[in-house]
């Protein structure tokens, strides 16, 4: 299945001038990246469902939360990946951002007599010429701003990974968390404290233990109108604290697993020459340049045609004379 087609626009037409072996390598690289992206988005979707289930204790809201987190994750990951997908064929990159050198020879040329097909030939010839001129990728150029943008990208991904990690840890350890919460709920001391009245002025009484005990039992006792889903607590922060304490340093290890999982596609795109130095991005760049050039030629021809029409069909002296009268 060509997953890359739906994410990165990986189409056959880009590889007409490429060897079968190179095409196969690019196919593998981009499909692998797409698969990773899909897995991460599915993970985010599932984590969202888990969060939704704990926060809202209703499946419908859980699914909506899942869709929201999945969507946010898809957009963010795609954004980060696309931002890193700049071709290493730097001359092509320059032409894409500034095509004045390509169009310069045609600025004063009369194109009015040329048909669409002939313009197409000019554009295709230019494409072939650029392809020939750019056989070897140049090393990527470093700029100080790269550090800043990289830090932002990595931070975004780490935030996302920690959110997903916590969601999955909630699900994996849900039974154990429930056991712990049950210990708190049935604790004699908590129940004894919860029997006492909170003083009238909470701020001034300082009886925070009583307030805590009341709050704990309110969070842990199941309400008939809102049965528990997954975690037997209405407070996600309480569950998180219990899980964090129970997992100890293992939680850091698990969070690290998710961080690596989420950072791998970014590292892949950044460090592997299969992407920035690959044929696909080169061909996409050539295609973009050609399309842009073709539209320039069409527009230029139209301008010249309109100008000629005005010159031939409108009598400017007569028009000027009429205006003066």
């Amino acid at each position: 299945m060509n997953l890359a087609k739906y994410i990165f626009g990986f189409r056959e037409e880009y590889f007409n001038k490429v060897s079968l072996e190179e095409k196969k390598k690019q196919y593998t690289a981009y499909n692998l990246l797409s698969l990773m992206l899909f897995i991460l988005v599915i993970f985010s979707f599932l984590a969202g469902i888990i969060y939704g289930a704990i926060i809202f204790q209703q499946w419908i809201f859980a699914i909506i939360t899942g869709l929201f987190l999945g969507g946010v994750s898809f957009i963010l990951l795609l954004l980060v990946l696309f931002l890193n997908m700049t071709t290493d064929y730097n001359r092509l990159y320059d032409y894409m951002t500034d095509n004045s050198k390509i169009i310069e020879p045609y600025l004063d040329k009369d194109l009015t007599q040329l048909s669409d097909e002939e313009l197409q030939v000019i554009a295709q010839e230019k494409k072939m010429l650029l392809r020939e001129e750019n056989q070897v990728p140049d090393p990527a150029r470093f700029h100080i701003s790269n550090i800043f943008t990289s830090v932002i990208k990595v931070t975004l991904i780490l935030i996302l990974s920690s959110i997903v990690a916590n969601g999955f840890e909630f699900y994996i350890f849900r039974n154990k968390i429930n056991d712990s919460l049950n210990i708190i709920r049935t604790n004699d001391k908590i129940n004894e404290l919860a029997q006492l009245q909170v003083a009238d002025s909470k701020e001034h009484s300082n009886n925070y233990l009583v307030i805590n005990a009341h709050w704990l039992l309110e969070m842990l006792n199941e309400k008939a109108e809102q049965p528990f889903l997954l975690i037997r607590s209405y407070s996600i922060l309480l569950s998180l604290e219990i899980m964090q304490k129970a997992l100890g340093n293992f939680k850091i290890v698990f969070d690290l697993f998710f961080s690596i999982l989420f950072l791998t596609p970014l590292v892949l795109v950044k460090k592997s020459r299969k992407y920035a130095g690959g044929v696909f991005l080169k061909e996409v760049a050539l295609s973009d340049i050609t399309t842009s050039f073709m539209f320039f030629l069409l527009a230029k021809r139209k301008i010249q045609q309109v100008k000629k029409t005005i010159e031939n069909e409108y009598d400017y002296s007569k028009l000027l004379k009429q205006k003066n009268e």
Partner: protein
Amino acid sequence: MSKKLNVLRISSLVFWIILALILLLPFFKGIFFSVETTEDWLKSFDEEQFIEEDSIVWKKEKIETDSINLIKEDIAKLPKYDINWVWSDYDGFNHQISFKVLKRDVNRAINFRKSYSVFFSESKIYNDFIKASNPVIDSMLKAMKMDMDKKKIRGNDMLNYVVTAIQTPRYTLLYDKCEYMFGIDFINDCRPRADGRGCCENIYPFGLFTPAEFILQKTGDCDTKSLVAYALLKKLGFNAAMLVGDTERGPHAMLGLTNVVPSIPSKYVLYKGRIYYPWEVTEKWDGFQLGNMKMWRGWLNWNVVCN
């Protein structure tokens, strides 16, 4: 090129291995998750003191270091002071305790104070002075505890019992020189005087007695009295503190208490998320109860220095 190819392979391998580990995690969850930590988490509810009106849950500190029990040698042969303390609390009940302290323990505390010269912080001085007076404080505490057990004094009544005992001896100024201060003409008489003009000259350093000296002489001013009340209440398990700040008459020290409902709420000090109510312990006059600060118009820079 082959080196570059490795990035793809290695990254891919790392991704699938981590993914496999995450998916296998549910099968080994028992190894990583420790339910016992919840019990530790719950301990915070036991360790913290909780006060209610009729029954008090307090830290059962063993009083083993009092002046008498510590002595391995024949205590009958060692010289002692007989101390008798008589007072009445705010509910009008009269109390009396008698206890003995070894002269040696009091002398040690006095010598400790006189040789104390390096100032690090108020907190350190207060704690060091309490430490130096521990055997004497414990003797008094033991006598108080026995009396309270006998009279079934619990909860906030314990606070009233202890603090009124410290408030009862009249205020005596401890200073470099006895002179006209705070609108009072102090005279050099180091005994608690009925007219409140008592003053001890040349008390170095810091014009502060150790709790042992106060217990023996019943002589002290704001910081000395607050320190003794603080030491006794801490040993009884209350969340007590030493408060220092400024009033319209200048620097002052008071006892602070948190986790309690004040008798006459007016002012308080916020420290590390807790509310400390001040208690003026210099005199046992009407209204000198927990939380009441109406006797002072000025209230500036009050803070907890020791808790």
